[in-house]
């Protein structure tokens, strides 16, 4: 008697279960496995996105739910207002300043650290572990605590600056007026996220096979030359990936900065995300802020796509 494995199994299992397992083709299983995730993504990601697009053409205000929703006139009014508003552009500049400086500092320090750790001195594993700790912590809780370190006059940061440079601690304020606040948030972000860049650079450095250096050594290439012609080009794709992730994350930056400065003093650290929160949840201009959200999404998506293209070119070389 010929029995298929399925039949054997069906006999061995209780009838109700057997009926269930018997008829399931791979195709069905694939759909059963993927469907819940797709449904959840539709509910939490896609549907809200479509709703945001719809709202961005209306005058809806979430704090007045009973007011009739009307299309704005002309239909692109919210978008036009945002794009012609000087405030938006100055916030974009603030965000760009934050983005560029955090990336520059994190790349320089992160790469240097990775390069040093790659000397494989004793205990480098333990140090890497300790270095990673800040980036695993809650940015909100940490950001909140940095306001304490940054307190004017009595703050630890002010004390350390006075100790090392002699500039009186009472003469400047890290988060207050005086132009230091944009740098203060850059310092905290760099403190938190340099280990991330370091980790990815380290992965890049460790991916370079030894024989390449050995060959260079045979060719009598100087260490300096080896660094620029082997190390840097081989790590570059990794580094670019790290920059991409940091760029996207910091474009979205909200939690840490919201607790450190809340956008202040004045509008000095008003990143786009914080501005968006003010428009949406303080001024309750839901339609307007929906358009704002779409503009931010398109910007980050567009920039990231262009960047990924460049990244792929570098990888191909």
């Amino acid at each position: 008697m010929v029995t298929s494995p399925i039949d054997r199994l069906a006999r061995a299992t209780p009838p109700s279960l057997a009926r269930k397992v018997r008829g399931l083709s791979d195709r069905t299983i694939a759909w059963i496995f993927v469907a819940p995730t797709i449904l959840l993504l539709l509910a939490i990601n896609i549907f809200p996105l479509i709703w945001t697009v719809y709202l961005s053409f209306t005058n809806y205000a979430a704090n007045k739910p009973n007011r009739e929703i009307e299309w704005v006139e002309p239909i692109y009014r919210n978008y036009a207002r945002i794009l012609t508003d000087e405030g938006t552009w100055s916030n974009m500049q603030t965000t760009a300043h934050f983005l560029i400086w955090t990336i520059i500092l994190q790349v320089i320090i992160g790469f240097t650290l990775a390069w040093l750790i790659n000397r494989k001195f004793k205990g480098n594993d333990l140090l890497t572990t300790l270095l990673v700790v800040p980036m695993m912590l809650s940015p909100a809780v940490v950001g909140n605590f940095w306001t304490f370190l940054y307190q004017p006059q009595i703050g630890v940061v002010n004390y350390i600056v006075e100790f090392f440079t002699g500039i009186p601690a009472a003469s400047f304020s890290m988060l207050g007026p005086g132009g230091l606040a944009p740098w203060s948030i850059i310092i905290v972000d760099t403190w938190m996220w340099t280990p991330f860049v370091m980790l990815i650079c380290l992965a890049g450095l460790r991916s370079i096979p030894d024989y390449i250096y050995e060959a260079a050594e045979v060719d009598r290439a100087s260490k300096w030359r080896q660094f620029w012609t082997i190390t840097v080009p081989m790590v570059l794709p990794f580094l670019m990936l790290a920059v991409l992730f940091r760029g996207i994350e910091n474009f979205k930056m909200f939690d840490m900065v919201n607790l450190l400065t809340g956008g202040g003093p004045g509008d000095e650290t008003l990143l786009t995300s914080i501005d968006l929160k003010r428009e949406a949840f303080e001024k309750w201009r839901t339609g307007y802020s929906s358009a704002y959200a779409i503009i931010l999404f398109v910007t980050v998506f567009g920039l990231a796509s262009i960047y990924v293209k460049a990244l792929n070119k570098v990888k191909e070389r």
Partner: protein
Amino acid sequence: MGTYSVTEPSKASKWVAGLLVVAYTIITLLPLMWIISTSFKTGPDSISYPPKVFFEPTVEGYVNLFTTRTRPAVSELDTLPPPDGLFEEIARRQGTIITGPSRFGERFLNSVIIGFGSTALSIFLGTLAAYAFSRFKVPLKDDLLFFILSTRMMPPIAVAIPIYLMYRQLGLSDTHVGMILLYTGVNISLAVWLLKGFIDEIPREYEEAALIDGYTRFQAFRKVVLPQAATGIASTAIFCLIFAWNEYAFAVLLTSGNAQTAPPFIPTIIGVGGQDWPAVAAGATLFLLPVMIFTILLRKHLLRGITFGAVRK
């Protein structure tokens, strides 16, 4: 004598590199040490200038974190019966009396419930989807995967606007279920992405052998693939948990009284008369310490999640 290698750094360069990294590590850890040490200071010690590195430790901060207190007039304080229990005694030393428990315990518990709930759900759904993406021909697979990942590019505030409206309609605002679903929705894209990477590495031959032995596809998945992917699943879970644990933007906008987690709560801790920094530091310490310990113990398993799968080993 070891063998000479051109790629092995010299002893001197190792020393210099080691010292520089140690120095940077110390600087990096200073703010964290400061949080922990502040949590054991008295109020006046925490804001003294110059800052106190050495001080007499106290648990005032922790007592204040878990209680609400009032400051009665000094004459009234003298007429009270002697303090009952350690908490009361410590409160009395600061010239205050305890009026009740604070909300920190609740908020911490909310963080635990929402963190573990969303992690369990993300892993359950994520593993199934990742297996399907890894093993079967799913139409539009690549687009779908890219799309799943690109949802993480949305600024959280942008997502929060429609979610806020949607939850208000559905009655999910400020509920644990709402937050669990939301964090799962945010986490699942990365979970699927990471898990697919782990499952891709399990040779198909194992399952095929099992299928020939008469296992159904589902059994092969459960009995062959799942045990093999256990490490990957665990490290993805830790990553999801840490995300949910640390999340602030959604929590501050979508929760208030009932389901609020600890990150939006800790910054609002205010003592009797001004910001109570030791209490804030105590809250921060209790909240951050589990993650610090987790990170140190499980670093190797975290790397892949942290780097979005870029680091494979």
